[in-house]
């Protein structure tokens, strides 16, 4: 069955200023989300290809993946990986969380972008004391306006923050860096319309860093 009225809708949209750009057909990837109730999904059982699943699993800290059989009580675990490397609780002296929304039509672009952004950022970011900690979709939150995505960075200290600032937002005389360019691209995917969710939170460990 063809919906005859849809052509009329399109004609109306054209009369109201719709711009006809280069034709584009995108597959729609369902995003199951409603308000602060978003279905939790095991990344290992997502729509990603097997290759992508393996790459995603490789990005998660050992022991933090739901598919890991490590329950933390396995005495033989020390034989698998250095305990002190994988069991550190704190992200850093400073952790920063940026919250943002993404318009529906940019969801596919975000997924495509993050696929290589996360690998690139980890590989390209050589500045000591700075770590990209991933971009997450919020599946439950009491904060309605903080954004449905969070990007988390950690810093060894204030000097690392300064280095990040100069790398991501160099002065005009320095031109733009690769890191600055892709970070700008990530920001461009954020929904900046009035009323869209956004937030910025800075954290320090509660123990030892606060008087």
């Amino acid at each position, binding site marked *: *069955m*063809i*919906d005859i009225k*849809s*052509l009329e*809708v*399109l*004609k*109306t*949209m*054209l009369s109201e200023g*719709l*711009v*006809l*750009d*280069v*034709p*584009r*057909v*995108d*597959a*729609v990837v*369902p995003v199951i989300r409603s308000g602060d109730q978003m279905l939790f999904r095991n990344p290992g059982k997502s729509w990603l290809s097997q290759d992508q699943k393996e790459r995603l699993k490789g990005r998660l800290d050992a022991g933090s993946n739901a598919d890991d059989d490590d329950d933390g009580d396995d005495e033989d675990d020390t034989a698998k990986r250095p305990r002190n490397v994988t069991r550190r609780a704190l992200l850093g002296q400073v952790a920063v969380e940026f919250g943002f929304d993404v318009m*529906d*039509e940019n969801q596919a672009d975000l997924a495509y972008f993050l696929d290589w952004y996360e690998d690139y950022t980890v590989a390209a970011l050589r500045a000591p004391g700075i770590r990209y900690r991933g971009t997450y979709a919020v599946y439950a939150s009491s904060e309605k306006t903080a954004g449905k995505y969070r990007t988390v960075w950690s810093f060894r200290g204030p000097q690392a923050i300064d280095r990040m600032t100069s790398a991501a937002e160099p002065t005009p005389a320095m031109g733009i860096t690769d890191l600055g360019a892709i970070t700008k691209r990530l920001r461009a995917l954020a929904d900046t319309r009035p009323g869209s969710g956004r937030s910025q939170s800075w954290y320090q460990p509660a123990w030892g860093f606060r008087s």
Partner: protein
Amino acid sequence: MSSRTGCFSRSPGLRIRPVAELQTCLVYRPHPPKLFRLNGSAWLVLELCEGLDRAQLMAAYRGVAGNHVSAADVAGQVEQGLDLLMREGMIAVSGPDGSARGRSGT
């Protein structure tokens, strides 16, 4: 590239749902099942695939688009739209002998 000859028609069972507030439309293709988002130009090409041949499609596209698209861009948009829609199995082309050709381009 889409066929140079023949008439273009939408695949059976296609569902088209305008989403005017997002200036797009959603199309459900039942065989095999998949959902697509089309921008305005791809949507218009799909709408016009009602058994028209290429020249008729160009004229119809120009007629609806009016001064929204330059004459030089019409051909390119129609060609690209047909290729994309054919690739995703949303339209098929019937040959001069009436035989239908779909996504494989055979």
